[in-house]
């Protein structure tokens, strides 16, 4: 990737910590839920260097793994990195120790939602919630409705307006949603954690 600019802030200053004083509960839970043992990470940074989105992250993926090992649970739960991660698995496929880092990020997102922590990229959470509301209603995603409600939620009316209009003009956004007939089966699926909590 010789064309990319040198990245600033690849290693932000870390707070002083005393690892022995922490109980690292998040670490154990992440390992169990993700089924991924990242003890063999030796901080080679292949994941951070290959990640297409690392510029927008507050910590590169390898640092998130290290923070988990140091017991910086709150900092991990509230970081942007886990939300910027789009799950493209570039890191996982480049890791010389075959650690599924993207899988760990996925588990961290689930845990952040379940624990109700402050989400560092609330607009991304809003977007996913709008997608699910649409799927709950119709059984399928209705993109025009999702974008409309997402704009309503985030109040970013005029950002990106021209793209939406171009898509409408090309009839890429259907006005009417396509629906599942057995909608009761879909409703039953939504009797779930996301809708009803623990």
């Amino acid at each position, binding site marked *: 990737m010789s064309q*990319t600019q040198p990245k600033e802030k690849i290693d932000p200053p870390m707070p002083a910590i005393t690892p022995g004083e922490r109980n690292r509960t998040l670490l154990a839970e992440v390992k169990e839920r993700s089924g991924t043992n990242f003890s063999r990470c030796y901080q080679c940074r292949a994941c951070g260097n290959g990640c297409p989105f690392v510029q927008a992250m507050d910590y590169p993926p390898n640092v998130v793994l290290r923070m988990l090992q140091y017991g910086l649970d709150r900092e991990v739960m509230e970081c942007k990195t886990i939300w910027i991660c789009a799950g*493209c698995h570039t890191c996982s496929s480049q890791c010389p120790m075959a650690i*599924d880092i993207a899988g760990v990020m996925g588990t961290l997102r*689930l845990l952040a939602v379940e624990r109700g922590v402050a989400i560092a990229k609330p607009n991304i959470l809003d977007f*996913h919630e709008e997608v699910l509301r649409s799927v709950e209603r119709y*059984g399928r995603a209705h993109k025009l409705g999702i974008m409309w409600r997402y704009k309503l939620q985030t109040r970013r009316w005029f950002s990106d307006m021209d*793209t939406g209009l171009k898509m409408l003009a*090309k009839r890429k956004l259907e006005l009417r949603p396509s629906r599942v007939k057995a909608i009761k089966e879909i409703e039953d699926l939504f009797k779930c954690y996301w809708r009803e909590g623990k």
Partner: protein
Amino acid sequence: MSAQQHLDFSYFPGCSMATTAAESNASMMKAARILGLNLIELEDWNCCGSSSAQTLCENLALGMAARNLSLAPAGRPLVAMCPRCLHYLRHAQACLRKDPEIHRELEERWARPIPLDLEIIHFLEVLVRYGLDRLKSNVKRSLKGLRFVPYYGCTVFRPPDLERDKYFQGEMEHVLTVLGAESVVGAYTHRCCGSFLSATDPELVAPLVNEIVDSSVMAKAHCLVTACAMCQLNLEIRCSSQVKLPIFHFSEILALALGAEDYEDWFVRHLVDPRPLLQELALVA
């Protein structure tokens, strides 16, 4: 299409193919019909769950994908074109194999079997497995002169929990060079297109998309051919480079080579009009 034996497959379109990428769906159906591949849409399918369910609720994500599996009749493979749908359907099947209790519970809930040995494959796999001979005997327009970048995006072969499944590396080149086109090397063929970040953080995605398109321009390609409907959309709507290349769905180029005549309906839906390029190469009138 007379002597050709017809082969039946179940087909899961997914939300993108059914709406924003309707041109990909139409051209794939056309190509399949010409090749004698009978894609039978799953009756009353639902959204595969997508990254949104996967992000917010594991059980919901599993249930959404599993319901689709419960709709697939036994005895014929289930085909998907969208790589993410394919991934989530396969992932759900893998989860159900590991967890017989949930498998039984879902089967009872819907009173339908969820076959764990159901084969779930990408349309590319169908072509390579059953279609190569059929391709040669059905070419109507040679793609000679068309220099393309095979853009796979991230999902077709990346997910590690599916690493035992078939890789599709090289298959688009395989098929399109049989049809006369020329594959170009040196561009970013597997770089992630930005996925849902294109909707939430477009300013982050635009430079990445530009890098992908610019790398194709530098490799002297005429166009990019994608295996994924979301990639196709993101590469079109987020490219702000001066030189924009047409972004084709793989199925469009395929159907064109097989002699489809309804291409106008697909190409008017593109944000970067591919018709001048195709006219220049005398592929369309």
